[in-house]
Structures are given as structure tokens and as C-alpha cells.
């Protein structure tokens, strides 16, 4: 496969090429970088939807439902579904495909499972990269399904154009819905499992928060609250309508460009951070200097603060100029 032109194949939408480059990204294989550089100019066309919420709220089933709705409109869909890696073994059980089997033979849908590999924030480190691959591969929509999140895993809003926060009845009282973190990032709230007891109350509580938000600060976009029963496909058309409305708002207000500009800013800084860290870690571990430093810190000859300064000054001479 050495003569296989991955870039050209990705741009043609080849699943084989997209899948392999995603693996390279995940493995930090150096072959990923030149591919990503070349496909980058072809990104920015897909609309990116994020679906987040606690474990078991129905994110996968909703992703499946929204995909179904989009396919009915003849739009192509890429999905990146993230599940956690074990902190003990590094292994992972990626179970999101089970909810999406009806799309598994549809060439208009590409679905990739991704393990977090220790990365926090609700996504895997290279979820962004995988989204770009799908975008360059010509998918009209890319849906990111986060790991089951708690209160503070909000990275998805930094990658998605529209973020849906999925809630279900029975998880907490009105105070939970007033807290910061995940409850703040929704462009759309989805109350799933609406056939369960307590759904109406949850709907009212979330609506109450939305109203509070609106009275605290003027907002151009007021997040709608959508009721769904994902396993029965109920409410999915309402959800797609809300997504479309949010997209229209972003596009017409100029917020979409602003969002994407912020994203590039943040992402570029993050990539620089990651690359610098990678280089320094590699050098420190290669000649076991890090072990020596740890010993000296243990013996109180050094401390982490002067070690940082030492390392940074050694490899980034420019920082001395400040």
C-alpha cells in the first residue's frame, strides 16, 4: 500500500484512507502530520455537532436518530464516538456502534469509535483531528459523541458548532441544573427518556434555568429545550429543527466565523503546547534525566519549581530574554 495516496483518497472520501489516518493520529505516528497539513485546506465545510451528557442518557441512540434524520435529507454524516480507556489496563470497551447498526452498511455514514487514552475533558486528544479527516472527506455533518460526562467535561463546545446537552429524569434536583460547567455549554438542551417519570419536572427546571440565564444577561441565542424518546425515534425531528435553527443563527449573526476563529486560536496554542511537551518529555526520558531529577527532588536537593526553570531555560533559550 506504499503507493497509496492517502491525501487524494481522503479527499475522495475513501473510508480506508480516512480510517488509517485517524489511527496514525491516535498513535502520534509521524505519517499523520503531512497528511493533515495537506488536507487542512479542504476542511471547514462540514457542520460539527456535539452531543454530550452523563453515561446512559442516550447519546448514542440520539446520534443514531439525528444521523437517520440527516440521511433522509440526503446529507452525509461522519461520527466520532468517544468512550473511556481504563486507567489501569489502557484497554477500552467501545460500545457506541451497537446503537448505530442500521447505518453500518450505508456508504453515506462513517462511524469511528475512539478511546480517550487518558485524555480528560470528554473527548480524546485527537478527536479534533478525526473531525478534520471526516470534514476533508466530504461529510456534510460531523457528529461528536463525547464520553459520558459529569459536570466539568466541556471540551466538546470548543470543537462543535452546535452543542447538545442530553439530560434524563431522575438525576438530581433543580440545584443541579443551576450549576456551572456542563449546564452552561448547551446550545440545545435535550430531555431524553421523556416517557420516564419526572420528565415534565425536569423540563420545567431546565426551562427555568434558561429563563434565569436570559434575565441575568442578554443573549442573542436562547437555548431551546427539546423532549425526546430516542429509542422510539420520538422528538428527533424537533431536535434536527432546533439544530438547523441554531446553525442559521450562527451563520447569519456572524457568530460561526467568530467561533471558528476562537477555535483556531485555541487549537494552535494547544498544538504548540503538545509538541513542545512531547519534545521535552522525549529528551528528559531518553537519558533518564527525569529519574535523576526525581531523586534529587526526593532528597530535597532540588524542587519541582527550579527544575522547571532549569529545563525551560536549557531548551528554550529565548525565554531568558524576557
Amino acid at each position, binding site marked *: 500500500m506504499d503507493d497509496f495516496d492517502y491525501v487524494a483518497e481522503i479527499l475522495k472520501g475513501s*473510508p480506508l484512507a480516512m480510517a488509517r489516518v485517524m489511527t496514525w493520529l491516535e498513535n502520534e505516528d509521524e505519517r499523520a502530520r503531512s497528511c493533515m497539513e495537506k488536507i487542512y485546506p479542504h476542511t471547514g465545510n462540514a457542520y460539527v455537532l456535539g452531543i454530550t451528557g452523563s453515561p446512559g442518557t442516550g447519546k448514542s441512540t440520539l446520534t443514531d436518530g439525528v444521523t437517520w434524520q440527516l440521511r433522509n435529507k440526503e446529507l452525509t454524516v461522519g461520527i466520532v464516538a468517544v468512550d473511556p480507556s481504563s486507567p489501569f489496563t489502557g*484497554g477500552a470497551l467501545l460500545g457506541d456502534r451497537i446503537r448505530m447498526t442500521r447505518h453500518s*452498511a450505508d456508504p453515506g455514514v462513517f462511524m469511528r469509535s475512539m478511546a480517550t487514552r487518558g485524555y480528560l475533558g470528554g473527548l480524546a486528544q485527537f478527536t479534533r483531528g478525526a473531525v478534520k479527516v471526516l470534514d476533508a472527506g466530504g461529510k456534510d455533518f460531523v457528529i461528536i459523541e463525547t464520553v459520558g460526562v459529569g459536570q466539568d467535561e466541556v471540551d466538546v463546545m470548543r470543537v462543535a458548532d452546535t452543542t447538545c446537552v442530553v439530560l434524563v429524569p431522575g438525576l438530581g434536583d433543580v440545584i443541579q441544573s443551576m450549576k456551572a460547567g456542563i449546564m452552561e455549554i448547551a446550545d440545545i438542551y435535550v430531555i431524553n427518556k421523556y416517557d420516564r417519570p419526572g420528565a415534565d419536572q425536569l423540563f420545567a427546571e431546565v426551562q427555568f434555568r434558561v429563563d434565569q440565564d436570559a434575565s441575568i444577561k442578554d443573549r442573542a441565542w436562547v437555548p431551546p429545550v427539546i423532549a425526546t424518546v430516542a429509542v422510539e425515534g420520538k422528538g428527533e425531528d424537533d431536535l434536527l429543527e432546533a439544530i438547523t435553527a441554531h446553525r442559521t443563527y450562527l451563520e447569519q449573526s456572524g457568530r460561526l466565523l467568530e467561533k471558528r476563529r476562537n477555535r483556531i486560536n485555541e487549537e494552535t496554542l494547544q498544538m504548540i503546547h503538545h509538541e513542545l511537551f512531547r519534545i521535552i518529555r522525549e529528551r528528559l526520558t531518553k537519558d533518564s534525566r527525569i529519574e535523576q531529577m526525581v531523586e534529587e527532588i526526593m532528597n530535597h536537593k532540588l524542587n519541582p519549581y527550579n527544575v522547571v526553570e532549569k529545563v525551560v531555560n536549557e531548551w528554550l533559550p529565548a525565554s531568558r530574554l524576557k
Partner: protein
Amino acid sequence: MAEKKIKIIVAKPGLDGHDRGAKLLSRIFAEAGMEVVYTGLRQTPEMIVEAALQEDADVVGLSSLSGVHNYFFPKVVELLKAKKLSNVLVVGGGIIPLEDIPTLKKAGIAEIFGPGTPTDTIVGFIKANVKSK
């Protein structure tokens, strides 16, 4: 370069309602440090191969208890080849009569693990035979 993980699809082809074994093996593979994509029951060979393609799997593990292995297992291998995925290691397990094993191996299934196989044997076989990409 980050540590590579073995990615394995665990699938049950055909009409077969029992997936305790497949679920347990999925756990065992994850415990062994692999990234396991569990596709669930009632998969067609086309669905399994599409999953292997999109997930860029290293291994496909097929489980069958209903006697459909002679058709489904070779079909999966054949479709993998057609999708240029001949590097994917295919292993099988479940209720497979001993006399069927030579034919299945000839068709490209690398190994068949029957009931009672120590799980270390299965994990060890996969780790020893997986191909790099």
C-alpha cells in the same frame, strides 16, 4: 510515537441470541489492554467488515453458537480481502465442531478457540499474530 493499541472488533454474525461469551471476551480483551469495539448481535458479514474498515481494526473476533460458522466466517475473510484489508487477523470461537476447523483455517481464519480455551491462550495468540500497520 504513542503506544500502539490493538483494536479488535468482536462480532456475532447471523441469527444467534446468546452473547454472554462474546461480552465476556470483550471484557477480557479490554483488560488485556486492547481497544474493543463490540458490535452486538445479528451482524451480517458486510456490517462486520464495514466496522473493521471504519475502525481500522487489527483483529476481527467472530463468535458463533448457532452452526453458521462455515458460511459466515469465510465470508468475512473474503469481504475483508475485497476491501483491501487482508492484513486483519481473523479469529473465531464458539461451538465449532472439530472437523470444521481445517476448512475454516484454510479459508483464512487464523485460529478457532472452542469452549474452555484459557483466555490467556486467546489473548496470547492475538498479541503474537497481529500485524503492524
